């Protein structure tokens, strides 16, 4: 499997480390216990497209959000996690309250 790092270009899997599901979001501090259990412990095991975090430790040390098909390892999208987070923050700010 190869990932195309936005900074470094196409690189082999050995340069990256899988860092988990990229779609989980930290609940509000006063969220229910169940929401926190979900956030801390429970992960989906999807068959198909999955958004996940990868760390380019042997390259530019960027965190990436990769959209991958878990069945075929087809890569649909690789973006800087920083850009994804900033875009989300702007969207949230635009909508006011964070859901």
């Amino acid at each position, binding site marked *: 499997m190869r990932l195309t790092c936005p*900074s*470094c270009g196409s*690189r082999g899997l*050995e*340069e990256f480390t899988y860092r988990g599901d990229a779609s989980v979001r930290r609940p509000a501090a006063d969220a229910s216990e169940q929401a926190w259990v979900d956030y801390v412990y429970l992960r989906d095991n999807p068959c198909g497209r999955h958004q996940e975090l990868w760390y380019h430790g*042997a390259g530019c*040390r*960027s965190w990436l959000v990769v959209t991958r098909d878990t069945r075929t390892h087809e890569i649909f999208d690789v973006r*800087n996690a*920083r850009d994804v987070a900033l875009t989300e923050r702007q969207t949230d700010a635009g909508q006011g309250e964070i859901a």
Partner: protein
Amino acid sequence: MADQLFPVPPVKYGSLRVGGMTLEQSPFAETVSLGAFLGAGRDELVNRIHEMFGVILPEHPRAVHAADGRCTFLWNGPGQWLAIAVEGLGLLSRLREVCGDVCALTSQSDSRAILKLSGPNVREVASRLVPIDLHPRVFGKDHVASTLAGHIPVIIWQTEDAPTYLFLVFRSLAASLFHDFSVALNGLSYSETDSCV
């Protein structure tokens, strides 16, 4: 009485010549890492370096040379660079004056050694260890890349068109990388000491 400290080179062998190719340690260089602070730090850093050194810090994995030719800046990740100069120029104090307030400056001089690989066929030799494409179509003069040589993290920097490569490697791994290259140079090598000078 305490023993006196004495400098030990990161690789004990001087250089290695195989088939017209040379693997050697580059002279000790002053190295400083620059990490732009958040916010306006990055643009301000680029402006200041441009004013003082006459170069634009690269956004992509490239090396750029200061107008006076005494210092080089390597891309080293988003918003991060390595400044390299020959020893004795006071690079860190100079950078501290120029841009100490807009970026994190850390001396990396002791952290890395530099191995130089030059001569014919060095692209083939380097390709045995480095998993990136070194074809001249995609990797040319003053291109740099952070990657792995075998299992050893390196920054590879092509300094000449007829490829000459510098490998910036963590000092404690320099001897292992030297050995790996000696094997790559010899094809099926026995020991690097056999052909060392």
